[in-house]
């Protein structure tokens, strides 16, 4: 056993009276990927912040390369060779690639920057990560995957040996994830220790060497990943044995609720599927890779985005014109977006305010707010969705990701929709809340709600949909009944130009490896 590059021992940290970390031990060995898991609120991000010098631990020791260290600031941690790649990337979009890489340490003479002084080393950094971008390119023009690579390049150029990645795949498409994992393998073989934080269990099997699971601020379990079974892991995370992640679905589709006809020239090419139907009691899953246009389609149906092109909509068989989200709500549509912090919630407002936001007009008497009915409505729907909050008067930002998502769902359920459009309904949500959301989806469809669910998580798509349509390049490329859909087939339709090619070839050429099951 080699000596650890860094080790944390008996780390405790409290915020006020709330103990977030309680005697946590963690060892990071060279040439290893250490997978850190746990439900939201288990203390993962606090642990990362302690390691990254953002929080100081109340007690406990951090040892880096055999030396005990006490970080006063993030700069201290950087100097000790620890690089944290946060979920919200900390590159500056309005500056060039080179400026970002060299930020704070350009070669200077009397403070004046020497142009070209570091061009060679910048090119070397970009080449090492196989980033084919010009150093003069503005970072805002880069894809998320390239920005992430840029940040890793920055970490490596600081001679960081310990690299912490916080949910690095949350904004990447499947091929981009493959590239990232390849890069992680390279870093590993170069002797780096990688602490990899993620919710996604399928990533565990692909890259992890060691697993540690946090629950309520303590280490619930740890071990070599080959020895840890999936059900064991889930048990550690939630504290109970969970047999299956997805509840059984039975579908009794009723009459057609929503019909969408795409009238763009792009989609009306021969043999393309241009129509989307969803019936009462049915979950229509829309699959595809990140950027396939499914999000834009939902936005367009909801009247929030005109860039997708013209749509012909029918609700309950009647043609309707939806020009704004206001129209959409009036016609019984509801949209849960994939970015609850960005456009799903007003984080600083209370849970109640957020729940009644879309129905306040109906609750008012003329121009006067009816506070009592606002309280009633928010109570009723929060209870129905089992929102766990100390008080609904708290700002919604104080809730965990899973409970925030339930507030978003409550907001839209309060509008009494006929059709619920869900975009990544379980993104950034812990395992327990995920299961609750799945059961809720089942209950709503039993009550006759029609649901369109966009998901890039293959297991979720396969398990929760009654029918699956796959999008690629803002077009539908395939449609499956749920019993005939396989992960390979769906993925093939999502990434290949030729849907008629046989799937066997796909799995032989390694595509099956990319399937996240």
């Amino acid at each position, binding site marked *: 056993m080699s000596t650890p590059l860094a080790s944390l021992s008996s780390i405790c940290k409290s915020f006020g009276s709330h103990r977030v970390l309680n005697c946590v031990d963690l060892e990071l060995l060279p040439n290893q990927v250490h997978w850190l898991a746990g439900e939201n609120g288990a203390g993962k991000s606090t642990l990362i912040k302690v390691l990254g010098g953002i929080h100081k631990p109340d007690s406990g020791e951090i040892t880096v390369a055999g030396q005990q260290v006490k970080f006063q600031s*993030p*700069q201290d941690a*950087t100097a000790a060779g620890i690089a944290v790649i946060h979920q919200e990337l*900390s*590159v*500056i*979009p*309005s*500056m060039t690639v080179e*400026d970002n890489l060299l*930020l*704070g*340490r*350009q070669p*200077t003479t009397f*403070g*004046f*920057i020497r*142009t070209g002084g570091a061009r060679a080393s910048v090119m070397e950094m970009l*080449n090492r990560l*196989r*980033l*084919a*971008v010009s150093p003069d*390119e503005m970072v*805002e*023009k*880069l*894809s998320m*995957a*390239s920005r992430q690579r840029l940040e890793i390049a920055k970490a490596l150029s600081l001679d960081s040996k310990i690299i912490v990645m916080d949910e690095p795949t949350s904004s990447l498409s499947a091929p981009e994830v493959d*590239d990232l994992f*390849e890069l992680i*393998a*390279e870093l590993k*073989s170069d002797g780096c220790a990688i602490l990899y934080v993620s919710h996604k269990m399928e990533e565990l099997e692909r890259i992890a060497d060691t697993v540690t699971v946090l629950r309520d601020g303590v280490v619930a379990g740890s071990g070599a990943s080959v020895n840890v079974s999936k059900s064991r892991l889930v048990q550690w995370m939630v504290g109970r044995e969970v047999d299956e992640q997805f509840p059984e679905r039975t579908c009794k589709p009723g009459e057609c609720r929503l019909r969408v006809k795409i009238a763009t020239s792009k989609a009306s090419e021969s043999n393309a599927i241009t129509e989307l139907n969803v019936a009462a009691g049915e979950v229509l899953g829309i699959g595809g890779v990140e950027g396939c246009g499914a999000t834009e389609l939902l936005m367009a149906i909801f009247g929030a985005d005109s860039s997708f092109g013209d749509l012909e909509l029918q609700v309950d068989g009647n043609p309707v014109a939806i020009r704004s989200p206001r129209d959409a709500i009036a016609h019984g549509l509801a949209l849960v977006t994939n970015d609850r912090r960005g456009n799903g919630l007003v984080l600083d407002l209370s849970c109640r305010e957020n729940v009644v936001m879309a129905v306040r007009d109906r609750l008012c008497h003329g121009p006067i707010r009816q506070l009592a009915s606002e309280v009633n409505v928010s109570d009723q729907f929060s209870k129905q969705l089992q929102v766990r909050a100390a008080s609904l008067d708290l700002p919604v930002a104080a809730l965990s990701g899973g409970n925030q998502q339930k507030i978003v769902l409550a907001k839209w359920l309060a509008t009494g929709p006929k059709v619920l459009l869900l975009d990544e309904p379980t993104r950034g949500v812990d395992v327990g809340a995920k299961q609750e959301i799945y059961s809720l989806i089942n209950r709503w469809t039993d009550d006759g709600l029609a649901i369109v669910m966009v998901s890039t998580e293959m297991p979720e798509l396969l398990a929760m949909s009654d029918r699956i349509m796959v999008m690629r390049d803002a077009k539908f490329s395939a449609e499956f009944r749920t019993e005939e859909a396989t992960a390979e087939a769906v993925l093939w339709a999502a990434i290949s130009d030729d849907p008629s090619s046989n799937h066997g070839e796909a799995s032989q050429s390694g595509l099956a490896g990319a399937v996240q099951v």
Partner: protein
Amino acid sequence: MTQQKPLTPDPQIKPANPSWWLQFVSTPLAKCLFALAMILLIGCLFNADGSFFKFGTHRDTLRQSAVYGILATGMTLVILTGGIDLSVGSVLALAAVTGSMASIHWGWPGYIVFPLVILVGASAGFVSGGLVAWLKVQPFIATLAMMVFARGLAKWVTGGAKVSTAVPQADGSFEYVDVPELFRLIDSRWLYDSVSVVSLIFIVCWLFAAIVLWRHRWGRELYAIGGNVEAARLSGIPVARSTIWAYVVCGGMAGLAGLCQAAQEQQGDSDVGVTYELVAIAMVVIGGTNLMGGRGGLGLTLIGILSIGYLEKILSINAVPEAGRLMLTATIIIVAVLAQRSKTI
């Protein structure tokens, strides 16, 4: 050893336009130049019987824009950090009365008065910057307070009277003194009458700030702070220090602008410079520098300064009344900002 794969190009970056010309016209600089060209074209059409084509007109435009231009130059630095400085008009007045009292009443020589006014302005900027960077007061609030305070200080220093060459005596009479050497120098023209000294002061200020912004590491730090303050902090940039320096330089330039103002008026008026900060902000914004910080630059601000300067001049030589001038200027600000808006982002 892992196998080296070829470089993966980023699919999101579109291939470069085939023609450099098409690339150029989509840049902020091109849009900005277009706005200035339009204004100059209007000047050629409405040339007031040829007076627009006289050299003196252009010389005067630059002179009349100089004080605003110095303010806008400093303002650009602050706005790039994502802040704003509302106090420059009041700081200008404070520096104007200080400079006038030192030169006229006390007869101090120019080589002392000149640094003195810069110091006065820089001190005001240091206080604003300290409030913003250390005490985390919002820039709007901090500089609003400084705007009120500096105006009050200017009135207190002068006792509410204008500081002019008619120096009040103890017995209530006035003694008339000469206009100080420094004021005459600043108000004169050099190089065979071809350029005003205030214009030169403005050009030097602009060049100083432009070079620093372009090549000094502090300039890059301002962009980084405005672009993403958290990323800047985590990259080891001294965020507080760099931010305060931006306010200090902005204040210093406001002080210098105050001296120029006093020299041209040959008096220090504590009521001068009201709404100058708004003109300066308008010049920066017309140039296309983003009020959120992180985007823009002094090249753009220069064109913004000239655009407003020329617009004012063209309207005044055509004897457009002030009411019309103000409304037209407002229209141009909106048109220019709309033209700056990029389609892609």
